[in-house]
C-alpha cells in the first residue's frame, strides 16, 4: 500500500474527481492541512443533498412495490447507458418526473390492495366463527328481529361467563340465548342472541366489561348460516379476483419502469456518495489536491488513466514510507485462490493492522486439518462434499453461502483423507465390510474407539504446536513494531511451556533425567523473561496458555462422539433383525450424524483459531480499504 498525493490544476478538479471515481482505486484521506495552506473545496455543481436523499427514498419505496416475486432477473439489471450522459440536474428532474407519474397510480393500487387484504382477513375470521357455530344453528331461535353477537373469550377466563349471564338476563328480561363452543385451542366463542330493542344496552354492558365482541356484519345476518358461509366464500372469491387484477397492473408497471427506476437509484446513490467525498479533497490557490492510499499493483493503472486524460498536468506523487503512518494504512485481503474462501472467517474479527500478519492462509491450512481430524470418515466426507458442491452451485450468487460452502468442500476432502487413516466409512461399516482398516503407525492403531489415549495425546500435541506457532507469529509482529518487551514475553512463554512439558516428560520417563537441570534453568530464565515482558500478568498468563493447549483435546473428543454415534447407528441397525427397518434406522442416524458433523467441527475449529490461536498474536483494528469509486453492480 502506498500513500500518494494527486495534484492537478484547480480548474480541472471536477474532471479529475470524475476520472479518479472511474478508476476506483484510491482510499481517500483528508488532504486538508491544519496550517491552512490546503483548504476544503466544494463541488462545482450546486445541489441539494436533502432533495436527492428524499428522492432516493421515494425511488426505493416504489422499487419495493414494483418487485413482484416472479420478476425475471434480467429486469433487475439497470439500464445505465440510457441515463449515464445526463448531468445530475437532468437526472434529478427525470427521476422526479418518473416518480411523480408512478406515485399516484401505485398509491391507489397499493391502498386498494391493503383494503382488500384487511377485508379478506376479516372474512376469514367470520368464516371460522360461523363454521364453529353452525352445528348449533338448530338451537338458535328464528333470527328475525334478533341480534346475534359473538363474544371471544380466552379459555383461562371462562369463569367470566358466569358473571355476564345474570347481567344479560337482567338487561334483556330473560329474553336471550347464550351458547358457547370451543373456537380454537385458546379461545371459546359465545353466541348471544337477544331482541334488537336491547341491543344498545347489551353492547354498552359488554364494552364496560372489556369483553372481546365480534359483531357479524349486517349482510351476513338475517339468513341461515350456510347461506352466510356461501356469501362469505363469494366475497372472498371476488377479493381474490380483484387482488390478482391489481397485481397484474403492478406487474405491468414493473415491466415498463422497474429498470429505469433501478438505474436512477444506482446513479443518484453514486452521485450522492461521490459528493460526500468532497470533504476529503483540498485546494491551494492554483492546485487541487487528493491524498490517499493505493495498492502498489493499482498504482501504474491509475497513473496511466490520469496521464491519458490530463497529460502531464496531473501528477501522482508517492509519499515516503513512514513506519508510523503505515499503521494507519487501510488493509485489504489479497490471498491466493486456495485461501480466498477463508477470508469469510476474517470478517468475524476486526481486520488486521497494516503491518500485522494476515492469518487467512494459516486458517486455510489448519481449519480443514482440524475439521478432517474431527470428522475423519470417508463416507461422511463424501456426503459433505456432495452437499457443499450442490449448495455452492445453487447459491453461487450469494457470496457468503458460496464462500462457506467452498470452505466446507475443502474441509470435506481433509475429512476423507483422515477417514482413510482411521479406516472409517460411515463409522465401522467399511471395516465391517472388509473394504479398509485403520492405519497402524509406530505400533499404535488409529482406530479411534480403541486408541483414545494416543489420539488425546496427539490432539494436545497439535495444540502445543498451534499455540507455539501463534506465539512465534506474536514475536514476528512485535519485531515489526520493534516492541522488545513483547518479544521477550512471548519467547518466555514458549520457554516456560516447553520447560513444563519437558519436566512432565522427565517425570513420566519419556525424557532422559540428565536434561532436568538444563530444563530447570530454562524455566527460571523464561519466568524472568515473562516478568520483564508482561509483569506479574505475564506469569499468570501461563495458566491461560496451558488451558488453551488443553482445549485442543476437543479435536479428539468431538471426533470420538461422532464415531461412537456412527458405531451405534451400525450396531442398532444390525440388532433390529429386519433388513429394511435396519437400513432406515442406519440412514436416519447417519444423516443426523452428518448434519452434526457439518456444524459442530466447523464451530470448534473456528473457535480454536479465534480464541486459542489468535489470542497469541492477533491484535486487529485495521481500517478496511474502501476505494473512492463506483460499487460494482
Amino acid at each position, binding site marked *: 500500500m502506498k500513500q500518494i498525493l494527486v495534484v492537478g490544476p484547480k480548474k480541472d478538479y471536477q474532471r479529475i474527481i470524475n476520472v479518479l471515481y472511474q478508476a476506483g482505486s484510491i482510499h481517500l484521506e483528508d488532504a486538508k492541512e491544519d496550517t491552512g495552506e490546503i483548504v476544503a473545496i466544494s463541488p462545482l455543481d450546486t445541489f441539494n443533498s436533502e432533495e436527492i436523499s428524499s428522492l432516493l427514498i421515494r425511488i426505493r419505496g416504489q422499487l419495493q412495490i414494483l418487485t413482484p416475486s416472479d420478476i425475471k432477473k434480467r429486469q433487475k439489471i439497470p439500464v445505465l447507458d440510457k441515463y449515464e450522459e445526463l448531468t445530475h440536474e437532468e437526472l434529478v428532474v427525470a427521476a422526479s418526473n418518473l416518480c411523480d407519474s408512478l406515485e399516484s397510480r401505485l398509491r391507489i393500487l397499493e391502498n386498494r390492495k391493503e383494503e382488500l387484504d384487511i377485508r379478506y382477513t376479516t372474512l376469514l375470521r367470520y368464516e371460522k366463527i360461523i363454521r364453529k357455530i353452525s352445528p348449533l344453528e338448530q338451537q338458535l331461535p328464528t333470527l328475525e328481529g334478533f341480534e346475534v353477537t359473538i363474544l371471544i373469550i380466552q379459555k383461562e377466563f371462562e369463569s367470566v361467563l358466569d358473571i355476564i349471564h345474570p347481567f344479560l338476563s337482567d338487561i334483556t328480561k330473560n329474553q336471550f340465548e347464550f351458547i358457547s363452543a370451543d373456537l380454537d385451542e385458546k379461545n371459546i366463542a359465545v353466541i348471544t342472541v337477544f331482541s334488537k330493542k336491547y341491543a344498545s344496552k347489551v353492547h354498552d354492558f359488554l364494552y364496560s366489561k372489556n369483553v372481546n365482541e365480534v359483531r357479524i356484519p349486517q349482510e351476513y345476518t338475517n339468513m341461515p348460516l350456510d347461506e352466510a358461509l356461501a356469501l362469505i366464500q363469494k366475497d372472498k372469491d371476488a377479493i381474490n379476483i380483484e387482488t390478482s387484477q391489481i397485481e397484474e397492473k403492478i406487474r405491468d408497471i414493473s415491466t415498463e419502469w422497474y429498470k429505469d427506476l433501478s438505474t436512477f437509484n444506482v446513479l443518484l446513490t453514486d452521485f450522492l456518495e461521490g459528493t460526500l467525498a468532497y470533504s476529503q479533497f483540498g485546494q491551494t490557490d492554483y492546485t487541487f489536491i487528493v491524498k490517499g492510499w493505493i495498492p502498489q499493483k493499482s498504482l501504474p493503472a491509475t497513473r496511466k488513466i490520469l496521464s491519458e486524460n490530463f497529460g502531464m498536468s496531473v501528477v501522482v506523487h508517492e509519499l515516503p514510507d513512514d513506519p508510523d503512518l503505515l499503521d494507519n494504512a487501510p488493509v485489504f485481503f489479497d490471498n491466493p485462490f486456495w485461501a480466498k474462501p477463508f477470508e469469510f472467517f476474517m470478517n*468475524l474479527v476486526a481486520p488486521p493492522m497494516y503491518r500485522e500478519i494476515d492469518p487467512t492462509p494459516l486458517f486455510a491450512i489448519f481449519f480443514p486439518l482440524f475439521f478432517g481430524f474431527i470428522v475423519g470418515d470417508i463416507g461422511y466426507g463424501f456426503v459433505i462434499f456432495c452437499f457443499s458442491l450442490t449448495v455452492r452451485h445453487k447459491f453461487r450468487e450469494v457470496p457468503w453461502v458460496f464462500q462457506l460452502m467452498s470452505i466446507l468442500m475443502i474441509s470435506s476432502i481433509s475429512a476423507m483423507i483422515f477417514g482413510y487413516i482411521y479406516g472409517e466409512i460411515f463409522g465401522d461399516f467399511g471395516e465391517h465390510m472388509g473394504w479398509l482398516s485403520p492405519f497402524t503407525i509406530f505400533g499404535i492403531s488409529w482406530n479411534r474407539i480403541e486408541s483414545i*489415549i494416543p489420539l488425546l495425546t496427539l490432539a494436545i500435541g497439535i495444540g502445543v504446536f498451534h499455540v507455539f506457532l501463534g506465539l512465534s507469529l506474536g514475536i514476528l509482529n512485535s519485531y515489526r513494531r520493534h516492541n522488545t518487551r513483547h518479544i521477550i514475553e512471548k519467547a518466555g512463554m514458549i520457554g516456560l511451556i516447553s520447560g513444563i512439558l519437558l519436566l512432565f516428560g522427565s517425570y513420566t520417563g519419556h525424557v532422559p533425567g540428565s536434561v532436568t537441570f538444563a530444563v530447570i534453568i530454562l524455566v527460571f530464565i523464561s519466568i524472568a523473561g515473562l516478568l520483564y515482558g508482561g509483569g506479574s500478568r505475564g506469569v499468570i498468563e501461563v495458566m491461560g496458555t496451558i488451558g488453551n493447549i488443553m482445549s485442543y*483435546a*476437543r479435536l479428539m473428543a468431538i471426533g470420538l462422539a461422532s464415531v461412537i454415534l456412527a458405531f451405534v447407528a451400525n450396531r442398532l441397525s444390525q440388532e433390529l433383525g429386519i433388513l429394511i427397518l435396519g437400513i432406515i434406522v442406519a440412514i436416519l442416524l447417519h444423516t443426523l450424524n452428518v448434519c452434526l458433523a457439518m456444524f459442530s467441527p466447523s464451530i470448534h475449529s473456528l*473457535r480454536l483459531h*479465534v480464541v486459542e490461536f489468535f489470542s497469541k498474536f492477533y491484535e486487529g483494528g485495521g481500517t478496511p480499504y474502501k476505494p473512492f469509486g463506483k460499487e460494482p453492480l
Partner: protein
Amino acid sequence: MAGWEVPIGAAIAFVGGAIATGIAQSKIGAAGAGAVAERPESAGTIIVLEAIPETLVILGFVVAAMIIIMVE
C-alpha cells in the same frame, strides 16, 4: 485393581464440566439470541462465544481420561 470408584470419579469429573457448560451456554445463548435479533451481523461472533464454555466439558473429559489412565 481399580474398582467401581474409578469410573464413578471419572463420570463426576465429566458431568461437572458438562453441567457447567450447559449453564454457561444457556446464558450466553439467551443473551446472544437477543444480540443477534438486534444486530444480525454479530451472528458469527455470537456463535464463537457460544462455543467458548465448551472448554469446561472438554477439560472435564480430559480429567476423566486422566483419572482412568492414572489409576490403571
